[in-house]
Structure formats: structure tokens, C-alpha cells
């Protein structure tokens, strides 16, 4: 995996690897939540306020 441009911060090898592991785990949660809200959408249930985005707090 190679990304351009190279980052100006050194992400750190260990930080890079652990991040991939932790994020992969946490990403499952996000994917499950997204599917849930899709399934609930089929039944006409709208997502709760706090599941949308936080732009709302500053409107």
C-alpha cells in the first residue's frame, strides 16, 4: 500500500499497525449500525437525531 503524497507527520509504524487493527474492529460496529438503519428504513423508522450528524448542534 503506497499513498501519495507522503504525510508530513510520521504516523509511526506501531501506531499505523495498531490503528488498522482497532479500526477494523470498530468499523464492524459502524457497518452493522448502518445496515440496521437501512433495514429499519424499509419499515419506515427514521434514524434517531444523534445517529445523524453533529451539524445539528450548531444550527
Amino acid at each position: 500500500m503506497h499513498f501519495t503524497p507522503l504525510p508530513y507527520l510520521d504516523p509511526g509504524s506501531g501506531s499505523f499497525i495498531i490503528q488498522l487493527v482497532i479500526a477494523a474492529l470498530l468499523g464492524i460496529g459502524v457497518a452493522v449500525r448502518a445496515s440496521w438503519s437501512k433495514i429499519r428504513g424499509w419499515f419506515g423508522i427514521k434514524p434517531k437525531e444523534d445517529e445523524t450528524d453533529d451539524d445539528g448542534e450548531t444550527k
Partner: protein
Amino acid sequence: MAKQSSGILPASFRDPSGFLFTRNGILLRQVNRAYADDYARLMESGLYEKLVKSGLLIPHVESNAKPADVSTAFKIIQPERVPFISYPYEWSFSQLKDAALATLSIQKRALRAGMSLKDASAYNIQFIHGKPVLIDTLSFETYREGKPWDAYRQFCQHFLAPLALMSARDVRLSQLLRVYVDGIPLDLASSLLPVSSRLNFGLLTHLHLHASAQTRYADADVKSTAVKGGMSQNAFIGLIESLENTVKKLEWKPSGTEWGHYYEITNYTDSAFDHKKRIISEWLEKMKPASVWDLGANNGEFSRLASARGIATVAWDIDPSAVEQNYRRIKSEKEQNLLPLVLDLTNPSPALGWANSERDSFGQRGPADTAFALALIHHLAISNNVPLPRVADFFADICQRLVIEWVPKSDSQVQKLLRSRKDIFDAYTREGFESAFEARFKVKVAMDIPETERRLYWLENRT
């Protein structure tokens, strides 16, 4: 602020995207050609507008000023001026926590606009009108699916580690940020945190396991061996949300404050307290200062006489609890113009970083138009043994004008300081005080505070 002869600010050299410089007293930011695409995306995607509207990003205007380095320049922008630059080791717990949450909130909004923060430095956040604001307009880059967050380690070092230590161990550990200018090393944070912090999923993963991974994979070549497929956008969002939840759950309650009940235990009667406020208010009306530093401000009772008049005011105090209480009040009452900061006047913030010129010292960020030194002189002259002429020299270096309260030896607060030690302070008299300060200041007005033994002076710097 310290600067090079070119006008380029020495704190701004790491990021190839651009840099800050001053010309004719105006602060400008050069955007380099290398950053042109990302800058265009920030401005055209609506992200800039959204963030500025939410008060999360510093507004700027594009300028016609000549670039400081023509060979690399793409554009010059003029950001709104920050009233006072403060540093994370001067913030109370909630200030650092709000700065962390602002950073993550910006990152979430950036992701929705197809961008991502390429750094997460606590020094990129400043408090303006009581709220944390990102001041580095060039912190955004185009998000590429699969790419992990380069700033993950920096976020953990600058925000998560100090917050966890302050919350779970001791609030004074924020001072480690003064030693480690790029944030607290995670192995150090991990070893200082209590074992129980491993039961917290966020701290276990983002700090403890993160620290072990750094040691274990220190020499791994991730550029060639990195996991195929990288990090999905869902994984990226999961990571940011997890950091957000972890930070949100960290709490610290100011208790047992050094000055906690200070105003209840002083020898002030309510009416004497009001007299003091009235005198200072009248003086402020005449002085109309551009800025006020309230030194030894406690929870900001007297600082508010200035900030409520629209004067940019910094309320410095040594006690993290007093600063925390002050900040909470600013938040809950949506107060403007007041910035509370932690500072030990007997050892003020030094100049730090590369060549000692990345972060300005306490004095370099002055001088203030007007300084308050209320009920402070005895702490400097008696608790810290500083001779009065040296106290006067210090104040003469940091302010044009000084409102200072003389607290005589007979005062019960001074007697309290002398209770456990020999009185070696023969020079601590009103005459000694006046002659020490008259060497550096002209007395404009002086008056006794009714119902007390104390006296207030309005002094003008002789230089």
C-alpha cells in the same frame, strides 16, 4: 511573538503546505503550490464555510500581499487575529477536553466533505471568545479511501494521554506537556496510568495497546508490508467515534481547591469587597485598556470587571481548580473576552521547542496593556522570598500599567503565611513597597480600600 528577519514565524516550519509570516504588523499565511488542490477542495466543498459557521475554524480572507517566498507561493491568506495565544500546558482539564472534542468534531465534518485532518496538534487549537477554534487552515487534506489517519498517534499524545492522566491519576500531570512538546509519549502515559484504566476499552486500545504496539513494531516497514486493503471508511469513522466516546467519558471534578473558599475566608467583609470592585471599575472606565492580564486571578471575580467591558482579558492562576471553575462559568454563561489559564508566576511558561522559538514564553506574549496584581504581592514577596524591587522589575517588564493591591504585614492573610516561619521580611513595609515600585512606575492614584488595611495603586510604567 519571536520571528525571523524574513518575518516568517519560527513556529511554522514543519508543514510543507505553507507557513505564517508577518508584514507591517499583519499576520499572513502563505499557501504553497503543493497545497493548491487541497486548499481548493476545502474552500469549494463547503467545508470551510460550514466549519467557520460553527465557530470551529478560524475565518480568513484572501490577500493581495506579496508572498514571503515567491518560489513556492500559491496564495496569501489573512486569518482573523487570535486575541491571545495559549498553550495546552496552560489549560485546565475541560479546556483540553473541549479542544480534543473540537478536533474530532472537525475531523468528522471533514470526512463528510471528502477531506481529513492531516495533523491533530493541540497547538493548532486556540480559545477565541471562550471556545476552541482550529487556527491552522492548512490542516486538511483530501481523504483517500483506505488510508489510515496519519494524525492518530499525535491525537493520542496531545490529547488522550494527558486527559487520561489528569482524570485518572492527577490533574497536575498536564504539566508533562511542557516537557514533551509533541505530546506525552504513550509508553510513559501507559506506565503512569492506574491498572484500572485497562478496564476502559478506549484507554486499553488507544493508549495501552497502542503503546505496546509502538514498542513491538518500532522497526516494522509499514510502507512495504502494510496490510492490503488498508482502512475502510467505516473503520475510519469507527476509530474517530471511539476516540470521541473515550474522551467524552473522561471526567475531572475540581475539589479541594487551593483557593476553593478563598473569598469566604478572607478578612474582607462583603462591603469591603464591593469597595474594591467599585474602585477598580472606576479606574477601568478611565484607563480603557486594550488588554488586561489578571495575575493570581483565582476564579476570575475581578477579571470579569474587565472582560464584561469588552476588554480582552486573561485570568492567570496557579490553581488548576480555580481555572477549571472559571472556564466552566465562561461556558455556562457564554461569556466573551475572558481566557482563564494555569500559570505559576514563580516559574512562568518558558520559550519552548526547536531553538527555543516555537512556543513563546509568558513574557514574550506580552506586554499587557494593564495587569492586575490583586492580593498577590504577599505570595510573591513572602511565600516565594522575592525582594520587592525584583517584584517591581518583573511587573515593569510585562505591562504598561499596573493595578496592584498592597497587603500589609498586619493583614491576617500575611500573618497566616508567617505563622510557620521566621519573619525575615524587614523590608516588607508600605514604604519599602512604594519606593521599590516608584523606581519603575509613576503613581497615578492610590487609595485605601475602606474597611481593610489594604491599599490599591494605579501605576504607570516609566518606560
